């Protein structure tokens, strides 16, 4: 894969926005991969959690947009409590989701969920899913 790394990308509005929303210091990550090793949803992800943070560091917004990884994060915080550099990746994942959702884009389409599924799901499942994955 050929990627372009430039000062413009490294200091792009996108990188600044992720740092601002997440409150995390992106360069702290040294790519040990512990987040991906412990992630319970990594089996479903096209890019691993440590790859996502690397792409954010490099400002490669399009690569993240083309991946489904951020939408499969369950915010279980396993990565956060294990990171040896104190980076809270769950907050970076949240910032990345919010950058999309604040454009009024939903990941979960509420109207597409059948009524009988809504009726059987516990309330906390519905509310948290809508909070995490809809605009």
């Amino acid at each position, binding site marked *: 894969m050929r990627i372009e790394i430039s000062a413009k990308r490294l200091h792009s509005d996108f990188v600044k926005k992720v740092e*601002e*929303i*997440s*409150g995390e210091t992106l360069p702290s990550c040294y790519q040990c991969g512990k987040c991906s090793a412990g992630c*319970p*949803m990594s*089996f*479903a992800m096209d890019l691993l959690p440590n790859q996502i943070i690397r792409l954010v560091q490099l400002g490669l917004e399009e690569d993240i947009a083309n991946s489904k990884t951020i*939408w*499969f994060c*369950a*915010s*279980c*915080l*396993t990565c*956060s*409590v294990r990171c040896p550099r104190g980076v*809270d990746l*769950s*907050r970076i*994942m*949240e*910032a990345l989701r*919010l950058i999309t959702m604040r454009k009024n884009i939903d*990941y*979960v389409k509420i109207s597409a*969920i059948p009524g009988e599924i809504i009726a*059987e*799901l*516990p*309330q*906390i*499942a*519905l*509310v*948290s*899913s*809508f*909070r*995490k*994955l809809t605009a």
Partner: protein
Amino acid sequence: MDLSYYPGCTLKTKSKNLEDSAIASMTALGINLVELPRWNCCGTVYSLADDDLVHHLAPLRNLIRVKEEGNSSVVTLCSFCYNTLKRANLLIKNDQEKRNTINSFMEEEIDYKGEVEVVHLLQVLRDEIGWEGISEKVVVPLQGLKVAPYYGCTLLRPQEAAIDQVERPTILQRLLQSLGAEVVDFPFATECCGSFQIVGNPEFVLDCAWNILSSALRRGAEALVVSCPMCDFNLGQRQRELRNRYSEFREMPILYFTQLLALSLGLGAEVCRFELNYIDPRPLLKDKKLIP
């Protein structure tokens, strides 16, 4: 002793078995859980965005209700509610700038600085009554019942909200041992069940459930013990699908810790509301001679 109690939405609807067995057990142990006269949904998940304060208002309003009642702590049963209330409280306690913004936004409310302590029922059992105190009250020891304690995420993560050691918790194990059960240790006790992904990506949650349940089964567990209505659903409700997908899978009841507590305190099966469990635990409990 009276303790202020915040139930949350799911305990009033899908998880009456958790609420009913908890209230009855605590009464038997000398603690009255007094439900807040006014409460609202906690929002279920703590906002992880630095620039999003509005989602902290719902949990904080509940804590303001507790303060208005003149109580210094509030007990939660649902793991999601515990986590959301606890962390919103830590935020307002530790971040002066955000505290000022939130308080001035909620000008109709009394000022709140994080004075109320948020505790989970398991902490009350450990810290107020103690394992020995519970053991002394057991009239139906859960002898021969092999149970695997499953913690999930929100009682343990992040570190500052954890009710026990993050990577090696023992609180459920100690409780179940006090009740006379045989506790089965298994490596997926703190692994996430897939949580709210059940709504948007249910097929992946089935994989999570398989990992957790098959590990507990291999270690010889006959039932899994949980505290969270989300884990209960993700691990219990989809077991029929797991049986269809994996021929070696055997169905395994998921029990709330409060149901086993009530049973061992001799409060009878009715209060446990076993009919609400996704996999009926009564055949197993009958087999162990714990219910008639």
